[in-house]
């Protein structure tokens, strides 16, 4: 059974209360001693959400808040009739097909010509010892072919990843955690980032997306962490446009009044690695639209 470290799911000002934190720490550290298996962790992660939302079908977690709220789901279904990301998707398709100055294409940098492979990212790259996200791979493809890198938070990167996600729709996330201490460390770092409180509001990613999915924060219904990257990139009404995973992480950080990290920083890539790994098996649904 999945369980959460702190009893109950109330948010605590208590993290500021030192003695209690120390006490809890002592208890929980005892609990985590010993070997933890990421595959078992991922199962527990999924089970937590399945148990919390017994009426939501597993695949539906890829639709974020729309899986949890009927009124919002209807608004979304209406929008999906002619989704606002349509223009970006088309632009991405054109960009993807357009050759670089040297005559090569994005397709030459990826297996299967880049079609239907989004579910395999991020990947751990043994040569460099780092996590390679799809956004990073796209820019590495550009620079390897003599092109300038494009902004990780801009519309072009969103359009390219939208197209690549679209060709992978329905394919289950299949992120590999190879038997390599560095890969395991990247996963652990991503996990730690996910649960670490930050910013003036003292929120972690988990505060919103593990403890309170389905609840409203202002008007937004918080998405469950399970499947939260499956719909990326997303057209957010709040942005009035498309945004990448990098852009979303940066916005999340700002929302808790934390200074965002650099897009595709090690922390963000590791976080993406962790979040994708625990969502293995859930279908890619991107590009998506969100409030």
């Amino acid at each position, binding site marked *: 059974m999945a369980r959460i470290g702190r009893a109950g799911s109330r948010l605590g000002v208590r993290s500021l209360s030192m003695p209690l934190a120390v006490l809890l720490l002592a208890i929980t550290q005892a609990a985590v001693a010993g070997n933890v298996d990421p595959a078992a962790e991922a199962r527990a992660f999924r089970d937590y959400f399945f148990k919390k939302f017994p009426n939501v079908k597993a695949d539906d977690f890829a639709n974020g808040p729309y899986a949890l709220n009927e009124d*919002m789901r209807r608004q979304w279904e209406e*929008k999906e009739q002619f989704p606002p990301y349509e223009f970006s*998707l088309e632009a991405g398709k054109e960009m993807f097909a357009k050759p670089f100055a040297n005559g090569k294409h994005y397709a030459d940098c990826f297996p299967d010509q880049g079609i239907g492979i989004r579910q395999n990212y991020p990947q751990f790259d043994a040569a460099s010892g780092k996590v390679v996200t799809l956004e990073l791979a796209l820019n590495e493809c550009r620079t390897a072919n003599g092109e300038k890198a494009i902004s990780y938070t801009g519309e072009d990167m969103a359009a390219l990843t939208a197209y690549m996600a679209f060709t992978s729709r329905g394919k289950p996330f299949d992120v590999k955690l190879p038997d390599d201490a560095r890969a395991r460390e990247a996963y652990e770092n991503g996990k730690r980032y996910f649960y670490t409180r930050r910013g003036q509001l003292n929120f972690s990613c988990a505060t919103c997306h593990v403890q309170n999915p389905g609840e409203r924060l202002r*008007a937004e219904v918080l998405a469950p962490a399970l499947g939260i990257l499956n719909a990326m990139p997303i057209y957010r*009404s*709040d942005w009035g446009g498309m945004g990448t995973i990098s852009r979303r992480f940066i916005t999340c950080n700002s929302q808790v009044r934390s200074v965002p990290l650099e897009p595709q920083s090690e922390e963000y890539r590791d976080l993406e690695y962790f979040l994708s790994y625990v969502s293995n098996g859930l279908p890619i649904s991107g590009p998506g639209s969100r409030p």
Partner: protein
Amino acid sequence: MTGSKERFPITRRLVLRGAGAIALVGLGVVSLRGAPALAAANDKYPEEAFKQKDGKEAIKLLYGRTAEPSDKIKLDAPEIAENGAVVPISVSTTLADVTSIAFVVPENPNVLAAYYRIPQGTLPNIANRLKMAKTTSIIALVESGGKLFSATKEVKVTVGGCGG
């Protein structure tokens, strides 16, 4: 979803009118008209109605009369808008001889959101996406057989979409 776009051969023409024309419009010397075929229709773009800050005024300017509520109008809108910038709103009606449908959002800076002209043979059944600045009732107006009817529904807006 890309869907059907490849299925339609697209003939395309993108025209930006000359600066002169824009200046004239700015001065209100000429009113821009849509496709020439529209000259056949009596209605012009109701410029003044779209500038109104008050719902009643806009309706009076647009129709020269007041509306009476009708249960023959089905107005569909979310209870809580996920974002005020994009609120899906649709209307359908069983009223006969509908000639126009309009949407008024009383709390918006300009209250008239959209005015749809319905020629004979077109169904009185419209869906669109509107901005809402704050929580307010949205009013759908249906002109039917020379009379004006309305339906109202409240939409809660916590993230305002006044133009966003």
